[in-house]
């Protein structure tokens, strides 16, 4: 048996490449162990928290040498080609980890406040982040599929984590049912692609398609159409978006922030990689479809948000429309488009986590966020109101915020690629979006003459704790810096996408 095992040609593992995932998963496992072994100590939760942050920070720290290595020596392909660590992956890995650490910071105080302390929460979040990280570097449809599940399943649980709230459970259930459904569709797409090309490796597919002309391309086309559906579901592209408002609204707010930022980054990583690496030759087939998806996403996301009365739900819709902007960058299919998508994802992560961060702090115990409750906020909570106004304006794409640079990038990519109409739809969607951002802004800014009965005193008295404060400060600072001096970030994004993806 030992001999037989020895005969097995184990693939060459580049440990640097997998180290971040190991760090995250290791931290998660540690927390689980801690939870299992030490049952009744007050220290469990703080230590779990410490481990979680340590894990994320270590993982993040490991991205730095990865980046340097990748920049200096080219991409690392390892795990039998299942994994490809390149600038693109590292960059989005960074986005994921930044989102994770911010979401963790938010969650830390939120859980305490809501009496939901659970090391499991942290473990699940870390495991989900592991999946996301794996997704950013996955170079094989199966790896993507598994990573997709690794990131999704914890999210189902996390969405339903607040057991006292029916809405939280409902969010989990809906997300789960539809997530499983879309996974099945995605997997069928993988199957068809496999049948059509004989491989699930992205590079393999690309090479195959480059070397062979597939005469009966129907199965192939159907395959990647279904892949588009599966990933479109994760990024909440219309018409695969309908879970988003419900799941985002129902889930505990830090989870929503995490879902909105990190998941989107990971899913876009997969989407971009699959289509730009595996199917660049079929651009004419998928590009129009993506065009339509982007347009629909922009329009529906923005329009549907207009009449929302719940701020959290409105933000969910706005995240849908943001996906539309990123799709614009994807649709361009150029290096500029990829670059723009990356910039957008990072900026968006800061903006959206910032927004949800404020919402987290303002949420009542029932996690309702009626716009009426925000009335007069600038008087009661000037700092929080200021942050939220800033984040909302940034999301609206006001210049000198990251939101503008991000939008500028995708529009530039669209125009560069000749997709003028899509650019126009994008800018008009931004106008509609501005409408509902402004509604919230106005509500906060309106003079509160004490006529607002719904303002919960507890909420009014709530102070900003250290963690949340840090999140808001970091997110705001980042959004601002990106808006004012975007040079470094744009250069990073350019380095991340320099040349071909494979």
């Amino acid at each position: 048996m030992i001999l037989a095992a020895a005969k097995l040609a184990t693939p060459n593992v580049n440990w640097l490449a997998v180290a971040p995932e190991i760090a995250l998963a290791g931290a998660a496992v540690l927390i689980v162990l801690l939870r299992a072994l030490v049952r009744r100590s007050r220290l469990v939760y703080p230590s779990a928290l410490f481990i979680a942050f340590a894990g994320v920070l270590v993982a993040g720290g490991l991205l730095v040498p990865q980046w340097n290595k990748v920049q200096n020596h080219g991409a690392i392909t390892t795990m039998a080609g299942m994994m490809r660590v390149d600038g693109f992956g590292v960059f989005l890995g960074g986005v994921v980890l930044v989102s994770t650490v911010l979401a963790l910071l938010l969650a830390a105080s939120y859980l305490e406040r809501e009496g939901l302390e659970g090391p499991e929460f942290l473990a699940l979040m870390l495991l989900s982040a592991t999946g996301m990280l794996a997704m950013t570097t996955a170079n094989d449809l199966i790896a993507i599929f598994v990573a997709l599940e690794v990131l999704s399943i914890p999210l189902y649980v996390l969405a339903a984590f607040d057991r006292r709230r029916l809405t939280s459970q409902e969010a989990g259930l809906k997300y789960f049912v539809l997530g499983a459904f879309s996974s099945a569709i995605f997997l069928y797409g993988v199957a068809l692609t496999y049948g059509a090309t004989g491989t699930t490796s992205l590079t393999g597919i690309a090479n195959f398609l480059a070397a062979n002309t597939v005469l009966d391309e129907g199965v192939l086309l159907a395959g990647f159409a279904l892949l588009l559906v599966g990933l479109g579901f994760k990024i909440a592209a219309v018409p695969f978006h309908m879970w988003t408002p419900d799941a985002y609204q129902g889930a505990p707010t830090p989870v929503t922030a995490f879902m909105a930022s990190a998941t989107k980054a990971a899913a876009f990583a997969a989407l971009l990689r699959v289509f730009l690496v595996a199917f660049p030759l079929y651009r004419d087939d998928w590009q129009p479809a993506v065009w339509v998806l982007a347009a629909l996403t922009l329009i529906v996301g923005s329009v549907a948000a207009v009449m929302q009365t719940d701020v959290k739900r409105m933000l969910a819709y706005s995240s849908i429309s943001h996906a539309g902007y990123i799709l614009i960058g994807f649709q361009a299919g150029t290096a500029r488009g990829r670059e723009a998508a990356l910039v957008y994802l990072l900026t968006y992560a800061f903006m959206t986590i910032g927004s949800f961060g404020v919402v987290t702090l303002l949420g009542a115990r029932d996690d309702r966020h009626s716009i009426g409750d925000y009335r007069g906020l600038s008087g009661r909570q000037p700092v929080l109101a200021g942050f939220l106004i800033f984040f909302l304006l940034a999301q609206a794409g006001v210049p000198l915020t990251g939101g503008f640079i991000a939008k500028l990038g995708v529009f530039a990519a669209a125009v560069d690629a000749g997709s003028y109409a899509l650019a126009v739809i994008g800018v008009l969607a931004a106008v509609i979006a501005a409408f509902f951002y402004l509604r919230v802004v106005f509500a906060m800014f309106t003079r509160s003459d004490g006529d607002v009965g719904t303002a919960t005193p507890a909420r009014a008295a709530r102070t900003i704790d250290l963690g949340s404060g840090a999140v808001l400060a970091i997110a705001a600072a980042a959004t601002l810096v990106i808006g004012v001096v975007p040079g470094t970030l744009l250069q990073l994004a350019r380095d991340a996408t320099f040349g071909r993806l494979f």
Partner: protein
Amino acid sequence: MSSRDALDLVWLVPAFPIAGAIFLLFFGKRIGEPKAGWIGSGLLACSFVWSVVTFFALRDVTPRAHVRNVFDWFVSGGLSVKVGFLVDPLSVTWILFVTGVATLIHVFAIGYMHGDRRFGRFFAYMNLFVASMLVLVLGSSFLVTFLGWEGVGLCSYLLVGFWFERNAAATASKKAFITTRVGDFGFMVAMFLIFAKLGSLDYSTTLPGAHTLANGTATAIALLLFLGAIGKSAQFPLHVWLPDAMEGPTPVSALIHAATMVTAGVFIVARAHPFFEASGAAGEWVAWIGGFTALAAATVALVQPDIKRVLAYSTISQIGYMILALGVKAYAAAVFMVVTHAFFKATLFLGAGSVIHGSGGVQDMRVMGRLRKYMPYTAGAFVVAWLAIAGVPPFSSFWSKDEILTKAFDAHNYGVWILGTVAAGLTGFYMAREVYLVFFGNERFRTVPVVAGGADDEAPPDANEPVGTPPTQFDTPTVSYGEPPRPVLLTGDPHESPPVMVSAILVLALLAAIGGVLDLPFRSLEALNKWLEPVFADVKPVHPPSFLGAAALSTLSVALGVAGILIAWALYKDGLRDASRDPADERLGRAGRIFGHAYYFDEGIAAAVSGPVRRAADWLAFVVDAKIIDGAVNGIATLVRKSSDQLRKVQSGLVREYALGIVIGVALLLVWIVTRAWG
């Protein structure tokens, strides 16, 4: 100091009143009555003196024109406009009588405006008014003239609406400004056309260049300028503002009618006559409009009950003569008429002012009568001016009007000549009617029952009453045709005005009497004609009339004038038996009503403005703008909101529907894929 040096200082002429205006605007209230009035009058007198100096200086230079550019106003592209003054016989004639007459009116006003709470401001406006007029006539280019032209408009607005507490005054001032602005539109477009064709707006380059223009262009320019003239000179159809302008204090009316405003139209046509010369058709238009206005306004004046209103229509009529003269290219005659008219019309208005002042603010002639007994000097001056305007030789207007009619006849423009001649007869009648009703006949101001408490009719009426008094029935002292005679409130007898007023009237009356010597129709005595010759040198002379023919024509017009006077004498020599019944009106019957209502022209416009025009504007503002355009904007917003609501409905919360959404997406995506694979 050489003559040229003196002419270079011509800017002093408008500078005096401008300085006065600025000074009085800021310090008028502090200085108070009557010093403010004396300062205003004094500065104007300085201006007159300097005008005289300028006149003598100009006599010494050849050619008889001098341009003094003060500074570059603005330069844009090929357009260069300098603020400069053109001193030539035409402008000097104007500044002389303007400053002279205006000074006297100012002096008169010191008495007339006694007790007004805005005494200082009144003189500031008056000074500015004269200054604007001086800029207008002295301007070396169309644009500088236009500067004064608009300044005149502004001041007329301020002065007509001086007693703005009265709604009638407020409305009249607005009407004056807007109506003349219609004319200004013509002036502006004329300037555009002149610049487009001649590349400049200076008189010195454009006027000599006028003859190079195509006939049509010249006609267009001429008629557009004439539109401006119509507005300022209150000719048909833009005459409507002038009768209402009576709402201002009487010295203002005198200034408007005699010196500063209505003659501006005559001036601009005279100044720009090369364009009219270059155009064949423009002159005809001008002559006919002038003739028509002269006659029509005279008919309206026949039956007016208001002492000032008769004079107002008479002004329109007289200016009609001047315009007629311009139309038949009798420019010098027109200028002559302007000057004489300034004298007698100023006399008449100040006389009327004196009457109103002395009789407690009454303006209704039907309740006057036999006032010569109470105000003899005023009556004397008024009679002189009456004879002058009626064209009785040897008073001034005889000479000027006669010259115009002769020129019209010589120009073979017989239609116009007939209009003018008939109007001369009517002038005799209505002026005689006024004189008889006011100064002769029976005393009627005691026969009408006195209503207690009607203190609002006093002039100046409301300016001194405490704030917040409710408006009274008679907001304005002006009496319209068809209104019953108003009750009179007189605590004592009517009285003569103070010396400061009377002296001004008497000086003017003297001028009115002898003004004719300026231009007697005898060789070597045509002083004004000769003086103006350099200006109108380019006018093709009509063949000189035979002396006999001219004499015959004058005899005819004088006869008509005298006939008019006699008829009036017959009708009014005993005054009125019943103040509410006017014999002339009754004899004219329906025509009288039409005349009385000024052919319903003004009323028609008013009805149109408050009716269909207003409705159309309302429709534009509240239907087109608010409902359609803004409605479309809000409609888009509503559309988005409705769509949003629809999308919310789609988002039903039912997970199976969400799944259906995904499946629909898959199906559609595959449709596209199928078309790609099989297409």
